[in-house]
């Protein structure tokens, strides 16, 4: 497979386009496979890698026949989005397939927990041929992480869950304050919060927050 500098498959693998290398001096560059069915995100990453001087970037959107293709492409680095349901299949292939000639491991360096966390937070994972030097691969991973971050479903989803849990706690505390100070039942306390919110055209969580703060100021 020597000679291509850019391979892009937008639909099927039968459409892989192999263009001749126009820069013989880059023959030592890493070949990078980007697997992402989000086409916009994939092209943004591809552009970023090109801008950083990587000219062997292969983008695929479809998983069909991927195992065979990876063995043909023989990439040094594979970047894959975490939403891809075929990660288990790929990881298994990296471990056992006779088709893949070189052992492939996840991330650059197990001890680099900061990078790993940042990658998972951003919703991306990377597999790297064993033995590659950390400083060659790290910038690629960092690039993928920063470009993925903008698209990250995972971070948003988690923030949503965390703030929802925090909201619930605040409402529970506000209810508790009302129950204690006014001798209400839990349901009555909640109804009072909801009524107040409706009358003031505010959200329940805002009313609850004000109440908790006020109660703190009054030395409850």
């Amino acid at each position, binding site marked *: 497979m020597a000679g291509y500098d850019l391979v892009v498959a937008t639909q099927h693998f039968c459409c892989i386009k192999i263009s001749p290398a126009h820069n013989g001096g880059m023959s030592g560059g890493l070949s990078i496979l980007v697997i992402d069915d989000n086409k916009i995100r994939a092209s943004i990453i591809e552009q970023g890698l090109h801008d950083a001087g990587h000219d062997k970037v292969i983008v695929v959107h479809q998983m069909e026949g991927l195992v065979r293709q990876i063995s043909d492409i023989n990439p040094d680095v594979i970047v894959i989005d975490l939403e891809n*349901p*075929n990660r*288990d*299949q790929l990881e298994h292939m990296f471990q056992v397939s006779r088709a893949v000639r070189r052992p492939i491991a996840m991330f650059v360096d197990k001890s680099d927990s900061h990078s790993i966390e940042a990658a998972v937070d951003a919703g991306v994972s990377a597999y790297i041929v064993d033995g590659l030097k950390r400083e060659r691969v790290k910038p690629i991973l960092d690039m993928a992480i920063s470009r993925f971050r903008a698209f990250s479903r995972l971070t948003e989803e988690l923030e949503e869950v965390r703030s929802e849990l925090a909201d619930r706690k605040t409402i529970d*505390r506000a209810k508790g304050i009302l129950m204690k100070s006014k001798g209400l039942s839990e349901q009555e306390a909640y109804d009072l919060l909801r009524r107040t919110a409706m009358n003031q055209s505010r959200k329940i969580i805002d009313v609850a927050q004000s109440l908790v703060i006020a109660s703190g100021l009054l030395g409850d």
Partner: protein
Amino acid sequence: MNTNLKPVIAGFIPLLDSAVIVAAAELGFAEREGIALKLIRETSWANIRDRISVGHFDVAHMLAPMPIAASLNLTSLAVPMLAPMLLGLGGNAITVSNALWADMAAAGADPEGDPASTGAALARVIASRQKSGLPMLHFGVVHPFSGHAYELRYWLAAAGIDPDQDVEITVLAPQVMADALAEGQLDGYCVGEPWNTAAVEAGTGRIATYKQAIWPDSPEKVLGVTRKWADANPDTLAALMRAFSAAANWCADPKNNVELAGVLARPDLLACPAEICLAALSGRIRLDQASVKDVPDFLTFSGGIKAAPMPVYGKWFYEQMVRWGQVQPSKEAEQEVEKVFSPTVYLEAMGLSGVATDATIEMFDDARS
């Protein structure tokens, strides 16, 4: 009342045996134990592993061998883990294509799914295919460190079939197995419900045998926690297991089958027709389109002693890892495995301390441990 709910974030894969976690979150069992349980649906076991490892999830629905593989440092992002509670027993089956079943039936396979008989028939089919120079049969499992992989391999090997030489075993996501069978990419697969029933319903596959027949009442999914989280949150873990226990007892009650199937089928959970969830929940398994077999304990949820992990279970999974070359055997590894599958934390949380924990394993071919 619950003015101070403790938040817990749980990752799960949309499978029938996520029922206990789903019921705990959706039907109030978690809240009653003082826990605000939030579920996050995931698309791969690799994601479950990665996200619990970096702390996105406090706990997760996991394949029973996964916490062992993580604790033995056999996977990426491996961290020491525990499997403090079993979330489901049984629930898997081995489905083959109609064409393969026709050959197996002609070779004498038991239509009721007896594993010794169907395995022997498959061995005869494979021998005759090899003689005629036909291509190797392809089987699918969901993960290399899974009950599915070990059950399939055990069943094959017991019939004298070498899982690494006589067939090819690949990994595929559970929800695509039935399609892969229909398209001829696979000749068979071992997967949890409802993905066997899905192939039978579609008329493209036939259940050849099932987990409950291969290893009766065996652990399938576990509650997975990092040891770090378990050590930092002992009270929360205990309360969570009590919530899961109550939820499991609710799931185990046959009169709740229809309601449970309805909840699981929701678009934000399994996103499948409620009817195909009912087969395994009720133990009325359609082996093919014409025959229904009653397998009362096909899939078991339990909130009692049956949900306790036992070192002997962990050791069985570990022995399979050794048998199939996934790990080098060592005394230290074995001790580590016993720790991962220790029942102590569960028994203490449930007030069951002192209950006997000397479970034995009896396989269909009379092997015991």
